[in-house]
């Protein structure tokens, strides 16, 4: 871990030192933002194929990291819905963040002769190394969904990975802080290095901020997931008190916001310090509507579910893997947050271009 963090730090420093100076950083940052303010349009992630014919009599079992996490529940619903449209057997292995349950899931996939096993929603396949080897030996194809950043290399025990553009989200957060502070960001990034894509995500924010504004201040607070409730609020409070000039807090996962906002309130920084984040979780969009959060980058989980099934089918049908999960990132701010619903939900506000797009891609029409 230390080597990994040191490597990440050196990479950031190297990137920061070698990042090309931007001719007009404000225009560049605004361009990044504008690109993600448009209603998403569907872009085919690969060649069209006859999904019904290819998936006939096929069975897929997906093990999410935990079904107590709303994100996973919605992602699984969308994946099941896509599988239902095509007509193959899709099973979600319900669990509550327990290793023994994940292992049982892999055993079930082997004993019930499934064709593919999907590791979804943040579960690191490396914790199931021996079990996945056994699954491979039993001729199961193995995929991950919504785990790796596009810059990361997948674990050797996995065949296909639907990677997410966390780095792109990081660049967008940096651009947002730069534009909204009129080129004078002083940023506190709240990360969680124990979550696999966090390191490239934070690295992307740091590198983009350095490229946009080499002399601007930035600080990184690293809090493991299990300690969000006890460490984020005091950590943010301490950072705000030791540097009253901080004007943006960027929690990389938006569920952190519920602990960041009380820190702003209690230090009297509400209004002066803004929060921008990533995920589009409904309660954070509700906070945005109430003015507690300044911006949240959302990704439609309906869209993500269909895109994940698309990649799993490509794996089973012997087609090349997609470069990244075909899910656009959309900015939610005060202008459009009501389109996400009142109260907000995981799917509203993104349009439904993906439905027609994927159906055509899979030759369902």
């Amino acid at each position, binding site marked *: 871990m230390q080597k990994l963090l040191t490597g990440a730090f050196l990479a950031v420093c190297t990137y920061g030192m070698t990042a090309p100076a931007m001719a007009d950083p404000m225009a560049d940052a605004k361009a990044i933002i504008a690109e993600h303010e448009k209603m998403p349009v569907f872009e085919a992630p690969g060649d069209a194929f006859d999904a019904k014919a290819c998936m006939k009599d096929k069975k897929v079992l997906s093990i999410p990291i935990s079904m107590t996490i709303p994100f996973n529940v919605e992602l699984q619903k969308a994946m099941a819905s896509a599988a239902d449209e095509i007509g193959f057997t899709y099973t979600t292995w319900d669990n509550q963040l327990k290793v023994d349950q994940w292992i049982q899931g892999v055993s079930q996939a082997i004993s019930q002769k499934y064709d593919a096993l999907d590791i979804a929603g943040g579960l690191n396949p490396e914790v199931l190394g021996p079990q996945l080897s056994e699954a491979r030996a039993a001729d199961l194809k193995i995929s991950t969904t919504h785990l790796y950043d596009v810059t990361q290399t997948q674990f050797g025990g996995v065949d296909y990975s639907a990677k997410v553009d966390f780095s792109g989200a990081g660049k967008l957060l940096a651009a947002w802080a730069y534009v909204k502070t009129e080129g004078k960001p002083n940023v506190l990034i709240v990360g969680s290095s124990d979550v696999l894509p966090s390191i490239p995500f934070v690295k992307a924010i740091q590198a983009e901020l350095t490229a946009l504004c080499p002399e601007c201040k930035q*600080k990184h*607070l690293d809090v493991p997931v*299990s300690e969000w*409730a006890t460490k984020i609020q005091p950590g943010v409070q301490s950072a705000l008190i030791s540097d009253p000039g901080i004007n943006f807090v960027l929690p990389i996962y938006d569920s952190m916001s*519920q*602990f960041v906002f*009380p820190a702003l309130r209690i230090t009297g920084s509400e209004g002066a310090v803004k929060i921008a984040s990533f995920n589009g979780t409904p*309660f954070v969009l509700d906070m945005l509507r109430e003015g507690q959060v300044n911006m949240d980058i959302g990704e439609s989980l309906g869209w993500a579910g269909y895109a994940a099934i698309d990649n799993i089918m490509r794996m089973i049908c012997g087609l090349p893997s997609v470069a990244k999960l075909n899910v656009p990132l959309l900015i939610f701010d005060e202008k459009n947050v009501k389109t996400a619903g009142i109260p907000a939900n995981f799917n509203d506000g993104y349009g439904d271009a993906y439905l027609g797009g994927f159906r055509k891609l899979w030759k369902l029409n």
Partner: protein
Amino acid sequence: MTTIDLSTSETPAKTVPARPPRRALDWKAETERFALLGAWMLLIAIFGMLMPESFLSWRNFSTMFGSQAVLVVLTLALLVPLTSGDFDLSGASVLTMSSMLIAVLNVREGWPIAPVILIALASGAVIGAVNAVFVLYFRIHSLIVTLGIGTFVNGLILWISQSQTISGISMDLVGWVIINRFLGIPLAFFYALLLAGILWYVLEFTIPGRKLLFVGRGREVSRLNGIAVDRVRAVSFIVSGLISAFAGVLYAGMTGSADPLSGLSLLLPAFAAAFLGATTISPGRFNAFGAVIAVYFLVTGITGLTMLGADAYVQNLFYGGALVIAVALSQLVRNRQPQDFS
């Protein structure tokens, strides 16, 4: 039975003389009583010297005092059954259930905040009563019962919340917890301080409080002295549930939201503070102001380290290390008397 030690000089059965003989000041005992307080001051002095501008600002102290009120109240809740010799591992679950009930009823169902708070508090008392029934009627150890009931409550929380975080809790509650201030400190701190004062008074100066202490020190001796031991223990569980639910009200007011999991992580820090607090003010006994000092000693260390830019793991090293070292030093001062957690 959960006691830090069994000092024969404090055996309840012993006749207390009307006017105890005047004793010379016991420097060793006094040093032990105030050692943690001294360590806290030393910590403030060290961080103050390193960061005089930021660490010694009133804004920093008001922030520390206000933001830890929830942990203080939960620690006080655990302290009641600990005093009577029982563990309550369901405290954090009750806290989370209370905050989630507030969110569901106030935000989703649109009920006014005042009755919702009463319902949340009542839920804590009910869960405490259920704990008491299983511990006392079925004669099951409190560790097992409260662990089981706590896990059951966690399931209920996931069910009623549909595993969702709910934001948008009434600003009236948020105002009375964190926004409204006295001396620049959020009111939540003063609620916690007031509760500590009440607990201290009840345990030190009232008959029910002394009974609670006697039951914790020796159940059989208490029973032979005519104390209704089961009733005292039942009340301690109910009061613990009630105070834990109050911590949940403050938690909901602090964040303006409720989620089904995060409050559960407060259980171990609360127990750590209760045990660390038992090394100070009234050493060898779980005590309210000792617990308050313990919480703020730990948070001062963590705040200072964070302001110095220490990594997350350094905070854990401090938290765990401070707890074990403080209790170990206290034991050395007490000539390593055995701790009885039978």
